[in-house]
């Protein structure tokens, strides 16, 4: 009798293990298809023709865009975009976690690509109640220097250009 109970218990246990292992394998198989997907973590991200900051830009992506990771090389990743273009981006600008902009509507996405802020809505709201300085923050952000000037600055100062 005791032996029968043990055998029944064992069968039940083995069934559970087989069932749950099957579940896990299914989950992992489904996941494997998505394992190479990454999401853009910058408002605008230039996809470069080669692994160099000074390489030609082949496509511009915006925050939350999904790309497929092809390979990683140093701090660079080769990716394929949704429009099937292949190029290189810095690995640190990609996220494994799905990113969805809370403020990136079609209009604000266009604004972002035009180099304007996508955060105007929230700040207009805050600015009404607090003594804010967002106009001056805009001035700070407008202080970025052109690529041409930076390259000259690097050359004259015998500095490094961000190549691998």
């Amino acid at each position, binding site marked *: 009798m005791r032996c029968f109970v043990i055998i029944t218990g064992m069968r039940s246990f083995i069934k559970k293990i087989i069932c*749950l*292992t099957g579940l896990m394998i299914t989950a992992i198989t489904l996941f494997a298809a998505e394992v190479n997907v990454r999401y853009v973590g910058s408002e605008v991200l230039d996809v470069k023709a080669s692994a160099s900051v000074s390489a030609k830009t082949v496509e511009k992506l915006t925050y939350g865009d999904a790309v497929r990771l092809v390979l990683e090389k140093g701090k660079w990743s080769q990716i394929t975009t949704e429009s099937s273009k292949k190029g290189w981006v810095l690995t640190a600008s990609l996220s494994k976690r799905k990113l969805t902009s809370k403020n990136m509507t079609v209009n604000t996405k266009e604004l972002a690509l035009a180099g304007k802020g996508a955060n105007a*809505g929230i700040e207009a709201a805050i600015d009404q109640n607090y003594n804010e300085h967002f106009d001056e923050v805009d001035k700070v952000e407008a202080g970025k220097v052109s690529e041409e000037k*930076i390259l000259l600055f*690097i050359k004259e100062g015998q*500095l490094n250009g961000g190549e691998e």
Partner: protein
Amino acid sequence: MKKLSVAILCSLSLIFTSCATLDAFVAVAKTMESVSKGGDGTSAPDQNKNAKQSDEERQDAIAASVMTALEEITPEDQYVIGRAVASSVIGKYSLYENKAATEYLNKILAVIVRNSENPYLYKGYFVAILDTDEVNAISSPGGHIFITRGLINQAKSEDELAAVISHEVAHIQLGHAIQSIRATRILDATSKIWAEIDYNKGTYSKEELEDFNKTREGIFSTLVESGFSKAQEFNADENALVLMKDAGYDPKCMIDLLNTLKSNTSGSGWSKTHPKPSNRIEKSQKKLNKINFNGSSKEVRQKRFDAAKTSF
């Protein structure tokens, strides 16, 4: 038997989830939780409906808490909070609007970040000058760096300015400002404010706005009043030395600057929010000994630094 079952599943999950996403991990966690409750060999009849409901709620709560605990603050959230912090910094001090000097600093910054592992953030990095004699430098999690006129005037070379900027870039890249505030607080604040704002009407509730501002004030207070922890400061110095070397700036100039600050800045904002320069020199020197710098001498850049300094 139940324990053995859970142990086997744990082992399997460890093997398979080494490269798994968060979602997959949570799915496994939920399954394991389910097994640990119902896997005792008995059937369900003796469990009444209420108990089942309670179990489901408990599982949902566990899954939700796992998700919350592992939730990251997005680059967009960091940028939004960072802009608000930058607004507070400008409110406390004033911008020193000198186009030539600001452009010079932004060129140095651009070289440092393009040689780093994370040159983008959400919208990039920016540097501006604060119009005060106080010796200090502050960075927001959104990539905004502020250096006071007082600190700029202590620098004797472009490479020393690069040391200041690299230190702030390191704080940003290491996420120190964000770490100073509980992650859940930032998530609460940003998600509520995003959810509440009606973009057409610009409306929001007072409560949500207060949450957002408490978060901003928490970060601002760390940056301006209490400072980061000593460990974070030393870590930022060590990373700054690598950033300098990678950009082609002489990392030894970090030590030169700290020596100047050692004798010139007692009681200033910098000394209030940073460890003693002598301690920073000691730690930085140890790291410096391990760095092999093959770049050009700071003298190459001295002429343009001297020219730029006349505009400070």
